[in-house]
């Protein structure tokens, strides 16, 4: 049914653009953020439509979930709702218009092109230790990218640590929220663990799992079950750093004793990848929780 497909694609595409425009030009910041989160959900839908379930999961968890939480907490903390609407700027309109034509003509021939990489990934998949190609790329073929990416998450936390602390204490939770939170938290652990495990042979993986766990962590913190988390607590630091630490240790050891930088020894690929994923999940979960709920101020008292 090509017509129905076109209808779906067309609606989705237009909806995406409209939501983006609405987020940028909404009358209040609150509305803008809501539009943006809706945009995130539509994007997740789009990824699913385009046959990328890993991304759909990641987008739902990271793009819509974490970013939304961050946006709302910023709005709440900074008490911002005054918003001057963007003044129509002729350059701001004209420039993208011209650029659109340029980029579109550049992209025009691309659907005809083919890349040798997917075939190579498939050819080497069995040597990689995992059976899901995306995970193989992330944690084996291009593991160095992933190592740096885990560092990026860490740096974001370090950067936030240098700023003002988040405002005040967590508000007293409602009873209903308490109940929900207690129910939600174990659920997130189960879902996260499942996503992580499944990641080796089907969509899912460290980032998605970490994000889901972080959601649980945030919920627990909000209802006051979790104590305030702080950088000064060594378990917290260890959790935050575990991903990078293990990753770098593996890289160093493979380079020093093994065959080369991040060249996993034959046979132990799966174990190493699982270890790294596990640690990365813990780190991402802790880091994101800290990023959203903030931590006690300790620098520059």
């Amino acid at each position: 049914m090509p017509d129905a497909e076109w209808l779906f694609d067309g609606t989705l595409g237009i909806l995406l653009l409209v939501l983006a425009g609405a987020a940028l030009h909404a009358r209040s910041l609150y509305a803008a953020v809501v539009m943006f989160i809706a945009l995130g959900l539509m994007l997740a839908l789009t990824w699913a439509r385009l046959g990328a379930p890993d991304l759909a999961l990641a987008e739902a968890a990271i793009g819509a979930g974490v970013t939304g939480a961050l946006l709302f907490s910023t709005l709440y903390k900074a008490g911002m709702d005054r918003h001057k609407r963007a003044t129509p700027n002729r350059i701001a309109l004209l420039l993208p218009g011209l650029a659109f034509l340029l980029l579109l003509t550049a992209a025009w021939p691309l659907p005809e092109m083919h890349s040798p990489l997917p075939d190579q990934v498939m050819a080497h998949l069995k040597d990689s230790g995992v059976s899901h190609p995306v995970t193989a790329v992330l944690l084996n073929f291009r593991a160095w990218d992933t190592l740096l990416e885990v560092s990026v998450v860490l740096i974001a936390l370090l950067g936030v640590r240098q700023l003002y602390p988040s405002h005040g204490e967590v508000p007293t939770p409602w009873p209903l929220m308490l109940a929900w939170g207690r129910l939600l938290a174990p659920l997130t652990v189960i879902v996260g663990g499942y996503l992580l495990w499944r990641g080796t042979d089907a969509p899912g993986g460290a980032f998605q799992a970490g994000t889901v766990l972080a959601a649980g962590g945030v919920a627990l913190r909000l209802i006051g079950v979790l104590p305030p988390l702080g950088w000064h607590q060594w378990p917290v630091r260890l959790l935050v750093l575990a991903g990078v630490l293990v990753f770098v240790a593996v890289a160093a050891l493979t380079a020093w004793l093994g065959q080369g930088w991040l060249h996993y020894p034959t046979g132990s690929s799966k174990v190493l990848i699982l270890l790294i994923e596990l640690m990365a999940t813990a780190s991402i979960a802790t880091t994101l929780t800290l990023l959203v709920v903030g931590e006690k101020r300790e620098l520059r008292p």
Partner: protein
Amino acid sequence: MSTTLFYLAIGIGLWLMGLHGLLATRQSIILVLAINIMSSGTFMVMVALATHSDPVDPVLQALVVTGLVVAVSATALALRLAASRRRRTEDDAT
């Protein structure tokens, strides 16, 4: 016009919308949203490109996962900076 090309166009459109937002506004939260829209556009271009191989190109998917995580980290930092910057301007005013 194939599906791939359609989503490429949408991706470019989103990217440019983000760029437009960056140029047109001074509100820090909106600026962060604009950046995020821009990155979504980029990712959509990448995912659309991924569909023209069968099965869907795992390399591009992996790159987008990496990109998403980078984007969310940067957003977290940007939002906290925006809040802190705002507080400072308020401190100055009082």
